[in-house]
């Protein structure tokens, strides 16, 4: 499930003027085989809920020590931020982050 949310209010990454933000949600599932032929499983488990963030923006002094992003009121741990291109004296950065809802 991917949801391009634009730039929702309250979305901030220190040192980056954001131009796009995308959040993708995923869960892992576990289905228990009932061991009986032609019978639906009775137990299915969803676990490891994860929200993955990817973003792009213009660098306005991003510091490598910045390790969190606030998106939709949730705290994402930044996993990577890279300089991807330049246009004049503007630098384009893109990055990724991750949020585990059940960890909070």
């Amino acid at each position, binding site marked *: 499930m991917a949801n391009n949310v634009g730039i929702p209010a309250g979305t901030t990454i220190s040192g980056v*003027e*954001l*131009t*796009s933000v995308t959040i993708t949600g995923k869960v892992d599932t576990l289905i228990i085989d009932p061991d009986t032929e032609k019978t639906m499983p009775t137990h299915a488990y969803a676990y490891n809920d994860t929200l993955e963030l990817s973003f792009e*923006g*213009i660098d*306005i002094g991003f510091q490598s020590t910045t390790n969190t992003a606030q998106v939709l009121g949730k705290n994402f741990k930044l996993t990577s931020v890279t300089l*991807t*291109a*330049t*246009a*004049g004296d*503007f630098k*384009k950065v893109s990055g990724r982050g991750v949020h585990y809802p059940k960890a909070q």
Partner: protein
Amino acid sequence: MRIENKRLAEAFINKSYKVLGLSLKPFSLWHLFLMESAGSPMLQGGQALVRWQDIRWAVSISRSVWPNINWPSGWELAKSLLAMPYPNLYKELYNFNLYLLDHYSIPLIWQKDGDGADQNIDNLGNIVTITTSLVSAGFKLSEVWNMPVGMAYWYFVNAQRLKGAKIDIVSPNEEVAMEKVQKMRQQNDSKGLNS
């Protein structure tokens, strides 16, 4: 459908201009080629001293149609000076710069380090490369040389993309962000924070 990219719209929609009382043709690849060949100070964005005759020559060039060059004779230069007893050089220069800016709305391109040399608009091609590319794309040579500069660059960049070149044009929302960042920088400069 609304065209979001202001640079693209500006490249294709231009006003009419008069400088020194003379109507100018849309500023074309031919005009750019002639002015670059002559080393015109009019293209140096206020970094060079501009004299009255530089403006007059630039106006003459900007009235040329490929393959002709509309050089003014000494008599024509003198006549047009006599016709304007008190030429306001600042105003004429300002109008000529507006004319250049209006026709020079080329795409802004993100340049990548290392293997992204082909993304640099300056490396993408000189005027003759652009001309050759557009002719091979089906335009007539006269159409290309007389095409406004901005329009020619947009056609050229898209022709390169259709051939498979990876060219990352700055998107409209990125341009909005750039304007915002530029304002922030100017505010910081005025507060002395960037010094």
